[in-house]
């Protein structure tokens, strides 16, 4: 399974990854709609990514979360009832909500963000 990994020491907080991600999925450059997050701190930036751990799968009351063939945890929007329990219970805080949508969204390990990262602060890894 390909998982998005991070290396905060290399991150320069250019936010290119976030913009690419939101553009890809929501056709709009909006960091609040990205499936990963970069947050400036006093030290290295904090990078929030999904580890594909699957904790959220058991939380969902309607079984709208499951692993696809690649092992990646996906949200089945049609089934989702928008309770956002998965958001609250994600240990990485990597399941997201935006006011414009009534379903949560998360990283699907597509790797597009990795391609635009100038420093290699995020990368795909086979787990």
């Amino acid at each position, binding site marked *: 399974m390909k998982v998005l990994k991070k290396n905060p020491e290399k991150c320069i907080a250019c936010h290119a990854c976030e913009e690419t991600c939101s553009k890809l999925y929501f056709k709009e450059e909006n960091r609040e709609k990205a499936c990963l997050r970069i947050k400036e701190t006093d030290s290295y930036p904090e990078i929030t990514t999904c580890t594909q751990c699957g904790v959220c799968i058991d939380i969902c*009351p309607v079984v709208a979360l499951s692993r696809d063939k690649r092992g990646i945890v996906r949200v089945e929007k049609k089934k989702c*009832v*928008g*309770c956002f329990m998965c958001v609250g*219970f994600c240990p990485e805080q990597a399941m997201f909500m935006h*006011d414009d949508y*009534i379903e949560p969204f998360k990283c699907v390990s597509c790797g597009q963000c990795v391609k635009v990262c100038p420093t290699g602060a995020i990368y795909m890894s086979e787990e």
Partner: protein
Amino acid sequence: MILKEYKYELGKIERGYNNRSLYINLSDNTIKEKEVTQFMKDKFIGGKGFGLWYLWNAVTPETKWNDPENEIVIAHGPIAGITQYPGSGKSLVVTLSPLTHMPMDSNVGGYFGPYLKFSGFDALELQGKAEKDVIIFIDGNKGIVQIMESDIEEKDSHLIAEILTERFAKDEEDKKNVSVVSTGSAADHTLVGLLNFSFYDIRRKAVRLKQAGRGGIGTVFRDKKIKALVVRFEGTKGNLNNAADQGKINRTGIKLHREICLLDDKQNRMRKIGTANIIEIMDQYDLLPTHNYKFGSHKDTYKISSDKFQARVTQGLPDGCWYGCSLSCAKAADDFIPQTGPYKGQKVIVDGPEYENAAGLGSNIGVFDRDGVLELNFYCDTYGVDTISFGTLTAFIMECYENGILDKEKTGGLELYFGNKEAALELLHQMARGEGFGKIAGLGIRRMKEIFIKEYGADPDFVNDIGMEQKGLEFSEYLCKESLAQQGGYGLTNKGPQHDEAWLIFMDMVNNQIPTFEDKAEALHYFPMFRTWFGLMGLCKLPWNDIVPENNKYTDEPAKIPEHVQNYVDLYNGITGKNIDKHELIRQSERVYNFQRIFNIRMGYGKRIHDKIPYRAMGPVTEEEYLSRQERYDKQLKELLGLDPENMTTQEKMAALRKYREEQYEKLTDAVYARRGWTKDGVPTIEKLKELGMDIPELIEVVKKHL
């Protein structure tokens, strides 16, 4: 066979309201829509408020519970049906109770309420009586309501709910879109019948039941010859309420999900064991009702402690009674095999156990046997018997039995001493069959007292002291002898001694945070009003204070959980687009609370005399009780009354203590009435009604006669 079909336009919920309700009369099969007016929304908000208002208009002071004009109203509330905030799927059921002859209200989970809302209705009013058993079906996607003749042979809820879920769901996937309301065979023969609201558990692939337990609502349901109500709605989403500000609701919900995720394990472990978590705590603080509330603890409590139940609750995954409840107290024991009764030897699911059941079906009747509790719990639910009333009335019977008021002859052979699990189970089976002593037991404590006095020559003082009922309703399962405030929390209520208005035992007895009468009165004003609000909205009480923010203890009023109160204000404003604050929240409740009080008065009750409680709730009735806690009571005589217990007989000491405690209760009553804006007789004053904007002519007319 379909007796009547009605088609309606599908609607859209606007900011939490459909602005219409559904009315069904079973005597002539009328089905119609009614407008939910601005007046109703302003004064009664929704949920229980709507239920009480519809009932008020349906009945007269002479109406009896089994008259056709009595109604069962099921309503949710403006916030109900959101999926983001834990505990937002409750239905409120209101009817004239066969036990109290007054309006009863019960708060219940399951998917019926939300699906009724999504189908287009803010309330369902059921009036009249059918000739033969009927099933009422609401198809919330097609806009069809049907009354059909029932062809269901099965008599008990776990089967009825399963069969109807199967029948009305298109396929397995669709089962979660169906919810069934039903009761069981005992509702035909007793006055303590309950209603089971179902939801489909997609992981277990089984129908689960939640109970509208108190006050005999199931009995009324069967009296109307309703076999079941079924609603089907496909297409649940998180935004069907068309909230004014959905984002605000989402964020408020996520905040609480996070809090529960991080803190529940450290706090109440609701996700792991549900409300059963407090059994052993109640025992340690001498508050667990034992042997008909004689004592507050027992050496065998460890046999029914929460870890014993946890070991039996199979599915590791927490489950809620509506989507989005991350507190998930809805536990179940799978593959339970009853040892007695019609389902003996079959594998069944027992929903629960909740604390109340473990106490009522366990310690209070002396059954310190986990599987015994589970079996009683299973049969109570499926037969449609309120577990709390059953526990408390069986405890009463057992004490009467041990005191010679009853014997084997009178009970038809049942040896109903404390701890006799087999006899308790058989009593329950008799209730379901409408046979033997079970029929008498099923009348509830108030009527049993009359029978025991009149026919068995029981000492009236004694049975009135030990019969733990008030207003006709059996007490719920907390021992309140040492907490005056909780005595008020039970006694000074609208529907009877259920602790859902106020639970003040620790605040009062242990923490000593409300020492004066004024303090207690303030608590007995604020908490009942605050908790009433859940019933107006379609919310569950548990996520308010069974989880608290980490910094709660640093707030000015930790007992109120200020951050959560603000969450509720935000939810209401987020849904409706209004801008209330925490004070207006209390006023919303006060309007309905006072209305309910006046409704009681209109029915011939609701006065000071009806707020008295049996002495067993206040202090030691028997020498056995006094002596078991002698040190405590002697100390009180010395410190509070300046008496010298050394020179007194036990009888003298008991009499002195009793006089003192009864006076205290009277003083508390005075203080609480004053705080609530009522006269000394417990009647809301006209000034109070004016202040609340409830000076509606028909209310004034009722109170005027009593001022």
